[in-house]
């Protein structure tokens, strides 16, 4: 036992050192410091816990769900919460709501992951190039951004989906297309302050080109605030996806997408409230988890808070 403790201690000492011995060591030590800060924030850990649980549920959906999410049983429709064999009841076609929720987590994660990959990357690219290049490039890129920003998000997404056709992929694409402009604005604002910093002048004096400066020197400093913004936006993205599903422009039946589930349950909301409420609570929980984690990540990642 004491042997294990001392082993733990040496690992900790190795990670906490202020004199790392290799590139990998320095990076790990830095990550560990960030992890310690994040661990100190109990709300963020709560959010992280929920998201990890969601990830595991999505991964092991076939093992966890008590029923097939698509099997209908009209004799068994609209069963209340806690009825036999259906913990969260059944919907209007007699499908088990719990199983549909569990399978729906896959769709939610799929949407979130795709949007999180597309929108911030596009925004980062546009924003940093505009901020660093300045002049005409800046004006043109930022006016395009303004045009996208001027439309209400859901309305623009609706227009895109209507043009591209309903479906989960097109919903993701539409949400991404409407989500990137705020990231571009943040990235540009950050770039403007970073651009005139001495360390950028210093690397320019070593003969570094614009591409290297943007990707290796500006991106690492913008990414932290973007990550924070992405986690805070996740709630909005889930809601937008749910909204599109609700309007029948996102996931198509019988897909167990949470927004589509609410939309279906809406018809019975007065007599059978749980059909719409349960997926609503799921959306709420995951959105909250992303918000809490985002708040915690801001403390860890934002260089302006002086944690670095």
């Amino acid at each position: 036992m004491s042997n294990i403790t001392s082993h733990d201690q040496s690992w900790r000492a190795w990670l906490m050192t202020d004199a790392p011995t290799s590139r990998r060591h320095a990076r790990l030590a830095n990550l560990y410091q960030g992890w310690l800060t994040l661990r100190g924030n109990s709300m963020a850990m709560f959010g992280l816990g929920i998201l990890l649980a969601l990830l595991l549920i999505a991964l092991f959906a076939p093992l966890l769900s008590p029923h097939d999410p698509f099997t209908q049983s009209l004799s068994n429709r609209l069963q209340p919460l806690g009825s036999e064999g259906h913990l969260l009841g059944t919907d209007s076609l007699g499908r088990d709501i719990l199983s549909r929720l569990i399978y729906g987590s896959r769709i939610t994660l799929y949407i979130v992951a795709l949007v999180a990959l597309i929108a911030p990357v596009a925004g980062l690219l546009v924003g940093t190039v505009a901020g660093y290049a300045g002049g005409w490039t800046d004006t043109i890129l930022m006016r395009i951004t303004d045009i996208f920003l001027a439309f209400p998000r859901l309305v623009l997404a609706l227009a895109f989906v209507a043009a591209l056709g309903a479906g989960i992929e097109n919903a993701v694409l539409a949400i991404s297309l409407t989500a990137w402009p705020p990231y571009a604005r943040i990235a540009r604002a950050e770039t403007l302050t970073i651009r005139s910093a001495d360390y950028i002048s210093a690397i320019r004096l070593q003969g570094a080109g614009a591409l290297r400066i943007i990707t290796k020197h500006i991106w690492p400093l913008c990414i932290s605030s973007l990550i924070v913004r992405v986690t805070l936006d996740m709630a909005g993205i889930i809601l937008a996806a749910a909204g599109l599903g609700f309007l029948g422009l996102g996931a198509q039946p019988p897909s167990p997408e949470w927004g589509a589930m609410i939309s279906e349950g809406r018809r019975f909301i007065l007599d059978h409230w749980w059909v719409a409420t349960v997926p609503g609570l799921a959306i709420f929980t995951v959105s909250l988890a992303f918000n809490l984690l985002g708040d915690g990540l801001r403390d860890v990642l934002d260089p302006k808070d002086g944690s670095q």
Partner: protein
Amino acid sequence: MTALTIKNLNVWFGAHHDRVDAVRGANFEVQVGESFGLVGESGSGKSTILKAITGLAPTWSGDISVEGTPLSGAKRDRAFYKTVQMVFQDPYASLHPRHTVDQVLSETLQLHGFKDIDTRVVKLLDDVGLGGKFRFRYPHQISGGQRQRVAVARALAGEPDILLLDEPTSALDVSVQAEILNLLTDLRDEHKLTYLMVSHDLPVIGHMCDRLAVMKDGEIVEVMDSEDLRQGTAKHDYSRSLLAASAAA
């Protein structure tokens, strides 16, 4: 041979009625191997001359030539970066907050096209008096003096002939200032460097430089030997008042 020739240099910022003339009609030459100082109050245009040389202040007129090669505009070629390097004033601002010392130096070496990067990083750290234990630290893990040593190492990485020093010690504690100045003196002897040093601190310039130019309101009022500075025999009124102020302090 002259390392640096500045002829009738004007530098300005802004345009039309917002235009500020930061430097007006500056003339001086720095010989190879010499250490030349630029002294003046803050806002007298000393650092702006360095910015014009390095291309960081693009709006200038007049002639600047480096080792006989004239410069123009804000564009500088690779040969320029190989010849001229700069140490910035504030070591807290001149190092990338997310890059380790190793990343800073190896990227610089890579940009200058060296192949034996690992051995060179170790040698550079050694040259500036930092041991290997500093190699993988982030800037926030080292002190101001150590950061400035890293900045000096970065400037030396490309093996330049001319080093521009923009008040390299003014952001540091007094006790650390002397260390950095001694380091710079030693490095100059070792690497046969030419220094163009900007400072508002007359004793520092007197200690480091062979000759100096006194600047006031964007103009060079006097160029003198540092021997004159030590004797207190300045010709121009402003230089004399600067000397008197420095002696009083």
